[in-house]
């Protein structure tokens, strides 16, 4: 279900917690599973549950609670733009509008070629760098002027 590399990473997460608290690794395991699969299908969640010895619904609770997990397929590149107030004061909304225009999609939509999904993000703890956006949850891009957005989209398309 998951690659040996992913399982090895999950095992490393498990090792961070006391031996009888394996379920603590559920968040890490879901993150790793999502990195491999792109999103979290029910089978993936069930697999993680079994791997950690947890009821499937308990893992589903986790997967549906934290909003960086995707419970439905997303584009190859998921871009989340922070539009929260501090960012909005420095162009967060403008940056989002610009990306919408460039990709021809709205928030929570995916481009027809399956390349990009756009999400509205909440505060990323980087308000001083506004506008900020996240690529595939893990890569943060700061001070996103229109030129930098153009550049980023071009790079990502490659």
């Amino acid at each position, binding site marked *: 279900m998951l690659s040996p590399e992913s399982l090895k990473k999950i095992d490393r997460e498990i090792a961070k917690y006391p031996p009888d608290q394996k379920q603590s690794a559920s968040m890490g395991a879901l993150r790793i599973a999502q990195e491999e699969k792109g999103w979290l299908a*029910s089978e993936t969640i069930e697999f993680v549950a079994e791997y950690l010895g947890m*009821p499937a*619904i308990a893992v589903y609770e986790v997967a*549906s*609670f934290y909003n960086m997990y995707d419970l439905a397929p997303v584009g190859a590149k998921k871009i989340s733009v922070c539009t929260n107030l501090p960012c909005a004061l420095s162009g967060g909304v403008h940056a989002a509008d610009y990306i919408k225009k460039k990709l021809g999609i709205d928030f929570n939509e995916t481009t027809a070629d399956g390349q990009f999904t756009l999400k509205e993000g909440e505060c990323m703890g980087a308000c001083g760098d506004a506008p900020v956006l996240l690529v595939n949850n893990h890569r943060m891009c700061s001070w996103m002027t229109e030129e930098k957005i153009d550049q980023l989209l071009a790079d990502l398309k490659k």
Partner: protein
Amino acid sequence: MLEIEIDGKQLQVPDGSTVMEAANQVGAYVPHFCYHKKLSIAANCRMCLVQVEKAPKPLPACATPVTNGMKVWTHSEQAVKAQKGVMEFLLINHPLDCPICDQGGECQLQDLSVGYGGVQSRYEEEKRVVSNKDLGPLVSTDMTRCINCTRCVRFTTEIAGLMELGQAFRGEHAEIMPFVEKTIETELSGNIIDLCPVGALTSKPFRFGARAWEMSRRKSVSPHDSLGSNLVVQIKNDQVKRVLPLENEEINECWLSDKDRFSYEALASEERLTKPMIKQGGQWAETDWATALEYVANGLKSIASEHGAGSIGALVSPHSTLEELHLSQALVRGIGSGNVDFRLRQSDFSADGKREGAPWLGMPVGKIGSLDRLFVIGSFFRKDHPLIAQRVRQAAKRGLKVSALNPAFDDWQLPVANTLNVRPSAMASSLLAVLKSLVEISGEAYDGEYGAALATAASEPAARAIAESLASGRRTAVWLGNLAVQHQDAATLHALAQEIARIARSSFGVVGEAANSVGGYLANALPVAGKGLNAAQMLANPLKAYLLLNVEPELDTAAGGSALRAVGKAEMVAVFAAFKSAAALEYADVMLPVAPFTETAGTYVNCEGRAQSFYAVVKPRGEARPAWKVLKVIGDMLGLDGFSVDSVEDVRKRVLAADGSVEPGKLGNAVHGIELKTGAVSAKLERVADVPIYFADPIARRSAPLQQTTDAAEPKARVSKATLAQIGVDAGTRVKVVSPEGAVVVTLIEDEGVAGGCVRLAAAHVLTAPLGALNGEVSVERV
């Protein structure tokens, strides 16, 4: 103890009490939704906010610990303002269509909103809609009504032992649900209906059956397992509409198993027998009671004179009432036969004549919670005894360590510290090994009856671990489960378990199979050794006449196939039953419609020896009559002594003490002088048979909703991986399982809970009935 003042009333409460508990003590009602005395505290609904002296803001009564000298006001202006504020929030997204809601009239939200709700909603936005979930055949959902109190989630996790429901998503999007496309499978699922304070979870079988206020409520007792759960049966137009728990902390607490709750659906089934019927020239014809009774009386008389009274026998269901059990044996004995038995699934009767009393749990059910060690021998514990297992589950959280010896394990949803998983024929030697270790631990010489066998006992680490566990406890118990009682070496297992309990200073008991497993003994509905035939003997060599009281021999006895053949050969089979069946139409000659538990008065004696009498809650259906009356009339017709009873109480008095309880001396688990069978362990495949929860008795078998659950799925043959390899077939294939009595074709699946060398295949099902014996050697062949 802590001093507290609530609404001006002073009281003392134990340390660790909450304000809610204290308020309950003085009768101050604090509105609440998420709080439930049997569940962990969530404090999420916020309805129970009360004013506490010196606290800057109102505090939730359910979660706030009492501190010494605390002063609380549950209905002060501050408290009521807070409560009203919460009520407004609860209602903004809640549908206001009580008239079409199934919870209408018994809804806590509806009740409380009368007192705490505003007149008109200030919320004018669109209301939230939540999709419904398929929770299976028993629980219906209307999730838009859910107020997210999480009682149901906590129930599955804490009481049923497995988290089957969760609260997914967050904030306003939070939803109660099972895992994607899963239903809930716990045998206790119906309790979430009672727990749900609104109409989000309701009874699927009952759905829109009646409005709460249209029904009358009558008390009754569950006729199924040996716990004897107390019931409230709700009636409308002389029909049972719904069954709810009657709270009894000492028995079922506030819970019911799904079997107790939903079996009533069988009572209106099409198979109900509602008229006396006689078979003439191979044709069934309805008749009147007088004719039918005369037929039975004459039949008995003529068979007795022709073949001797010993050619007549009665098999009585252990789910019968005490009064029915008593009169059945009185009838048989009055005729001059000693052939009567209610221990229908038992196969080893060698302890007969060597018992001190009626086997029982050996302790009160209410004390289970204080055990710290428990050894369960031969039991499908969770499904056989759902609510006793639930008590053990709660005790396990407080430190009870459970050990178990079994040829097949299911997940009991509770921690089992030590397990011995061996084939049936090895169970006796395993017990001997436990006994041996216990004697070693005690450091004293063995002073009991079974020294010779003990000398041959082997040592085994798993047995040693169980012995150590028992020896380290302070309040310990050893219990025999249904499988142990039905076992081919039942007497040996009983004797050894008794010795283990004696050396470990444990309480010793038999959990008991049916509602009247204890009552059958008290009523003497069993043969006196040497003076009559037991259930197995009656069926091994066909008798001339059988009286079957609520018994379906192919399903309710240890040897289904041969039982069916035996009754098929008899000259007369008189069936006293609430239901007809295809099989009965074949073998019976006369069928008398007798009343099930809801339509008759009677008594069940539960596993702890508590006699619980009940009245009929509805009139008998059609021409059905209470069986005790039918038996009385037959007795009278035959001119037998002992039938001059005018009421069910008259019958009861013959078995119970004057106050309606069991005379203490009559209960007893001790057996003596048992010839131990600890010899050869079989080298062939052995059958292990469970009696699945919804196949166990004629009523459960006919409850349509229960039959739709996963617990009622068609039986499959289960073997361990190693055995699978040994047999040389793949999991998932169809195989023929062959016993000395017959053969059946079933699907084979892998199950690591089954001991090596065993095939687990359920009994009490039409599919597997031809196999007969619940244990013994079998073989598996490809088809």
